[in-house]
């Protein structure tokens, strides 16, 4: 046993493509599998819950047939869902229209000087930590029951992530790039606009996506407490509970989720469209 066969560790490797080639079938699977898995899990959960409910409590979890028959199938319910969605979406977007500029402004102010950051950061954290539900009576007393308090609640919910992510992005700008601007005698504003903002934009967009995902939810939460006037999906949820129309309540819930996902996807696409050409997170490999 002195002479053993020299063992060879050579193995053949085929080339590794940049992104694994998917082909038509692969693309189709990519498109279909995630929603199917999601939907399958949903159905499974639903069936489990429904199977365990006593018959007289099964109204808590209406069947798909009932959902169609008493909610989605009726044109006036569909119309109500649509108009209420628009109301809720309006509140959510109005809230973002406040929180995004304010958040960006706060981020820039904190970036301007460390002392301002030290002074403001704890306040932002404290503001975020105020339990919104606990101050709703106060808001009602101060601002009444109109649209404004709802918009402000959305703004409060969605603001936090924006200055935090923007500040992180602004602080991570390549020193070399800053030096380049400094050596040309560029002003702070020019440097901010031409170097810091573009560089921080992908980080900011991560914050915007968080904000977007919270916007619809917080709009609905706000509606639960401000029922005056023609409200959105939140009001529909409460009304249908009062009227024992649980099918419509589920319909409103599902629409709200759908709306929330849509807003999130819109911001994700916007970010991808803006940055995929140059940023590592963009995903384009070549």
């Amino acid at each position, binding site marked *: 046993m002195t002479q053993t066969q020299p063992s060879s560790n050579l193995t053949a490797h085929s080339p590794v493509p940049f992104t694994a080639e998917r082909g038509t079938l692969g693309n189709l699977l990519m498109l279909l599998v995630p929603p199917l898995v999601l939907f399958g899990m949903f159905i499974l959960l639903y069936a489990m819950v429904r199977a365990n409910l006593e018959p007289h409590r099964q109204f808590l979890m209406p069947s798909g047939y009932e959902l169609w028959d008493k909610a989605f199938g009726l044109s006036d319910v569909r119309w109500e869902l649509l108009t209420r969605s628009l109301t809720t979406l309006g509140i959510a977007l109005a809230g973002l229209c406040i929180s995004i500029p304010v958040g960006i402004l706060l981020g820039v102010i904190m970036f301007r000087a460390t002392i301002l950051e030290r002074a403001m950061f704890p306040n932002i954290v404290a503001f975020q930590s105020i339990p919104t539900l606990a101050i709703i009576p106060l808001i009602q007393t101060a601002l009444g029951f109109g649209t404004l308090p709802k918009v402000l609640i959305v703004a409060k919910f969605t603001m936090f992530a924006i200055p935090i992510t923007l500040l992180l992005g602004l602080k991570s700008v390549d020193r070399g790039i800053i030096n380049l601007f*400094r050596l040309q005698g560029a002003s702070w504003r020019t440097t901010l606009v*031409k170097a810091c903002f573009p560089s921080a934009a992908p980080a900011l967009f991560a914050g915007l996506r968080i904000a977007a995902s919270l916007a619809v939810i917080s709009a609905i939460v706000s509606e639960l407490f401000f029922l005056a006037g023609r409200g959105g999906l939140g009001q529909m949820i409460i009304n249908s509970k009062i009227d024992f129309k649980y099918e419509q309540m589920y319909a409103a819930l599902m629409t709200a989720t759908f709306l929330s996902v849509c807003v999130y996807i819109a911001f994700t696409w916007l970010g991808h469209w803006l940055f995929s050409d140059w940023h590592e997170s963009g995903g384009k490999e070549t």
Partner: protein
Amino acid sequence: MTLQAVPQPPDRTGGRTGDASSPAGLPIAGNDVALSFENISMQFPDGTQALEDVSLTIRKGEFVSIVGPSGCGKSTLLKIASGLFPQTSGIVKVDRSQLGYTFQDATLLPWRKVLGNVELLMELRGFSPEERRRIAMEQISLVGLDGFAEHYPKRLSGGMRMRASLARSLALNPSVFMFDEPFGALDEITRERLNDELVSLFMRNGFSGLFITHSISEAVYLSSKVVVMSRRPGQILEVFDIPFAYPRDPELRYTPEFATLCSEVSVSLRNAIEN
């Protein structure tokens, strides 16, 4: 401050007088100082002593290279000249409005295409958009990046990024130009080709150059003077005059005289590292 468009013929020509140590054919004549360091010492706030009593003068039209062990303070010297760090003691004399530089890394803005990057410095200096574009396109083709103007830096090779960075600095047509290892990331053949291009740029634009490199043959080939620095804290150990006439012939690299000079610099650098 002159902001003429490049390329342009050297307008600072004239018969070189007086200075025996300079090689023939330098694009600019005279003994005026372009950049001088007088007794520069540098200690960083964390206590690192990077430079100690460095004195070096670069006259107009000269091309000076610095070689020295890694970490000896070469980049620090350039940063002091550009004004990024204040030196601890000593004096720098230079017209900073006329100063161009390439950093050790290309520092391109990743969100701008090559064209936008090359336009950047002109933009900051307030050039008009048409002028910016025209000059940028000229510089891009000068450094051999034709066809890459619309590419993002992410899609360029290391050497191409460096050339884009070079084009960006060239666009301002500086009269004093500092290079921090611009060709460090390149293969020998590409490096030699770019060296030839740099010499012709030097002849054509007539700047004064300060060039940092780890390649002795590159230093000797490009320069009218090669400075050898010691280990940290950096001091100037030896200065070699390179007598070969400009513009330099690529074949120069294969001559015995060239080899002799390279080995002299090499011995000096070896001593710098080992002592």
